[in-house]
C-alpha cells in the first residue's frame, strides 16, 4: 500500500513541476515586473538595481529553481493590482470558495445519486423518462444563465433570498465562515444551487448507467430469485458495485466545480478565489494568476490521489492491481 502511494506521488510530481513551469513562464515573459514597479520615471541604474534585487538578472534556470523553492514555501510574490502578498490574498479568499464548492458538491451527490438509482430501477416508468429529459435540459443551461435566472425569480421576483455577497461571516482563526449565521446560510442557497445543478445532472446520468449495468449482472438475478427484499437488492447488492465510478466522478468533477465557481462567483459577487481570478485576469495580475494555477493543480492532483486510494478501499477487486497498473480512472 505504501509503495502504491509513493509511486502515485512520484507520477504526479512531474506534472506538478510542469504546471509550476507554466506559471513561471507566465511570470517571466508576460509583462515586465520592473517596469510595473518603477512606474513612468526611472533611470537605467534604478532599473538595473530593481532587476538585481528581484533576481531577474540571473539565468532563467536559476530563476526557475528559486521560483519552485518559493512556491514550496507558499510564497507567490506580490499582487501587481493590490500590492499585497498573493499568499495572504489566497488565504483570505479560500474559505468562501471552499464552503461554496463543498456545499454544491454535497448537494449534487445527495440529489443526484438517489435520482440516478430511481431512474435505473424504474427505467420503464414514464417518470424516469421525464426526469432524464429534465437532466438533459439542465446540462444544456450554462451556469451563468442559471444563476441569472435564479436571481430573477428568487431575489427580484419573490424577494426570498439575497442576490449577491456572502452575508455576515464569523471568523474562526484565519478561516471565515458563513455557515453559522442566518444571512450567511441564506446567501449560500442560490450560488450553491447554481453550481450544483450541472454536477447533479452528470451524477444522475452516470449513476443510472452504472446501476443498469449492475442490475443486469448474474448475482442480482440470483438475489431476486432468492426473494431478497427489493430495497436490499438495490442498495446493498447493486448499489455497492456502482459506487466506485460515482465516487470517482464526484471527486474529479470537483475540479470542474472550481472552474465553474469562477462563473458562479462573478454572477453572485461571491468573494472567493474565482472572483479574485476574474478580477486578476482583467488586470493582467500575473502573480495572482500563476498562484491560482498552482493551487488548482495541487488540489486536482491531491484529489486524483485520494480517488485512487479510496477506490481501492471501496472495491476489493482493485487491490490485486496495486502492484501492477494504477486502477483505470477514465470512463
Amino acid at each position, binding site marked *: 500500500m505504501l509503495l502504491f502511494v509513493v509511486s502515485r506521488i512520484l507520477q504526479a510530481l512531474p*506534472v506538478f513541476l510542469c504546471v509550476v513551469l507554466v506559471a513561471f513562464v507566465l511570470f517571466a515573459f508576460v509583462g515586465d515586473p520592473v517596469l510595473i514597479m518603477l512606474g513612468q520615471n526611472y533611470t537605467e541604474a534604478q532599473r538595473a538595481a530593481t532587476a538585481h534585487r528581484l533576481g531577474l538578472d540571473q539565468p532563467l534556470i536559476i530563476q526557475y529553481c528559486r521560483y519552485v523553492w518559493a512556491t514550496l514555501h507558499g510564497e507567490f510574490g506580490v499582487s501587481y493590482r493590490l500590492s499585497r502578498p498573493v499568499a495572504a490574498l489566497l488565504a483570505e479568499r479560500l474559505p468562501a470558495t471552499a464552503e461554496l464548492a463543498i456545499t454544491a458538491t454535497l448537494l449534487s451527490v445527495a440529489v443526484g445519486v438517489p435520482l440516478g438509482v430511481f431512474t435505473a430501477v424504474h427505467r420503464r416508468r414514464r417518470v424516469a423518462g421525464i426526469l432524464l429529459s429534465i437532466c438533459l435540459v439542465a446540462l*444544456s*443551461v450554462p451556469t451563468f444563465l442559471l444563476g*441569472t*435566472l435564479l436571481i430573477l425569480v428568487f431575489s427580484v421576483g419573490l424577494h426570498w433570498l439575497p442576490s449577491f455577497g456572502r452575508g455576515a461571516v464569523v471568523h474562526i482563526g484565519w478561516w471565515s465562515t458563513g455557515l453559522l449565521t442566518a444571512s450567511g446560510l441564506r446567501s449560500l442557497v442560490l450560488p450553491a444551487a447554481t453550481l450544483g445543478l450541472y454536477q447533479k445532472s452528470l451524477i444522475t446520468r452516470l449513476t443510472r448507467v452504472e446501476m443498469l449495468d449492475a442490475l443486469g449482472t448474474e448475482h442480482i438475478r440470483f438475489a431476486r430469485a432468492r426473494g431478497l427484499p427489493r430495497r436490499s437488492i438495490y442498495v446493498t447488492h447493486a448499489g455497492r458495485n456502482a459506487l466506485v465510478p460515482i465516487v470517482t466522478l464526484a471527486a474529479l468533477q470537483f475540479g470542474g466545480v472550481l472552474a465553474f465557481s*469562477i462563473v458562479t462567483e462573478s454572477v453572485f459577487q461571491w468573494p472567493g478565489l474565482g472572483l479574485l481570478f*476574474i478580477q486578476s485576469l482583467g488586470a493582467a495580475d500575473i502573480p495572482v494568476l500563476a498562484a491560482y494555477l498552482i493551487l488548482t493543480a495541487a488540489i486536482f492532483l491531491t484529489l486524483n490521489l485520494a480517488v485512487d486510494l479510496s477506490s481501492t478501499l471501496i472495491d476489493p477487486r482493485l487491490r490485486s492491481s496495486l502492484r501492477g497498473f494504477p486502477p483505470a480512472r477514465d470512463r
Partner: protein
Amino acid sequence: MRAPPPLAFALLLLFVMAAIGAPLLARQNPSDLAGLDLMNSFIPPVFAGGLWSFPLGTDDQGRDILSSILWGTRISLGVGCLATALSTGIGLTAGLAAGYFGRVTDAVLMRFADMQLTFPALLVALLVDGLLRTALPRGAQDATAFAVLVFSIGISNWPHFARMARAAARIEAEKEYVLAARLVGRSAPAILTAHILPNLSGTVLVLATTNLAAAMIAEATLSFLGISFSPAQPSLGTLVRFGSAFLFSGEWWLTVVPGAALVLLVWCVNRLGDWMGDALNPRLR
C-alpha cells in the same frame, strides 16, 4: 438504427438556417446604429403585451431582439463549430501519432495532455483568452475577437480527442490490415489517415457533437464574463450579459429570451449527441 429525435433535429436545422440566413431574415442588423430608433426601446415580447412588429421585444437601444438572436446564433454556432474543428484536428493528430508511434512521441504528447487535463477546460479557455487579449494591441481587439475565442476554446478541449484517438490507434495498429498496409510500403501518415481514421469516425462524431455543446457553452460563458467583450458582434452570451444589467429594473425579457434561445440550441446538440452515442453503442443495439 433508431431515427433521430425529431424535435431536436428539426430545431437544430432551424437554428442552422437562421444562422446562415441571418442577414436576409433579420429586419435589422444589430451593429448598424442607423437602423435603430430609441422610440422603440423596451418593448416587451408579444406574449407579454408587446407589438407584433417586434415579436420578442426590444432592448434599451430599440434593437429588435429577434434580429439580435438571429445574428447571435450565427456567432455562437460559428465559434462552436470552428473551435470543435480545431480541437478535433489537434486532438486527432496528436492522439493518432502518439498511439501509432508509441515511445517518446507517446510519452511527450500524452504527458502534455495530462498536464492540460489537470485544469478544467473552461479555466484554460479563460486564461488563454485573457492572455491573448493582453498581448494584442488595443486597436486590434475587435477585429480579432472572433479568432481569439475560437482559438482559446479550441485549444482547451483537444486532450479528450487525443486520448480517444490514442487508445483507438494503439488497438488498430496491432491489427492485420495495418500490418498488410505496412508490408506493401504505405507511409505512416497514409496508414493513419486512410486506414485507421475511418474506423474512428463514429466515435469522433459523437465526441465532436458533445464537444460542440460544451464549446457553445464555453463561448457564451466567456462572452458573459465580458472578457471577449465585443459590442459590435453580440453572441447569445453577450446578449444575456447586456440583458442582465436590466435585471433589477423589470425588463426581464432582455435576459430570458436570448437565454432561452441559447439553452434550446445547446439542448438540440446535446440531444443529438445522446442519440448518436446510443445508436453507436453496441450494448444498446
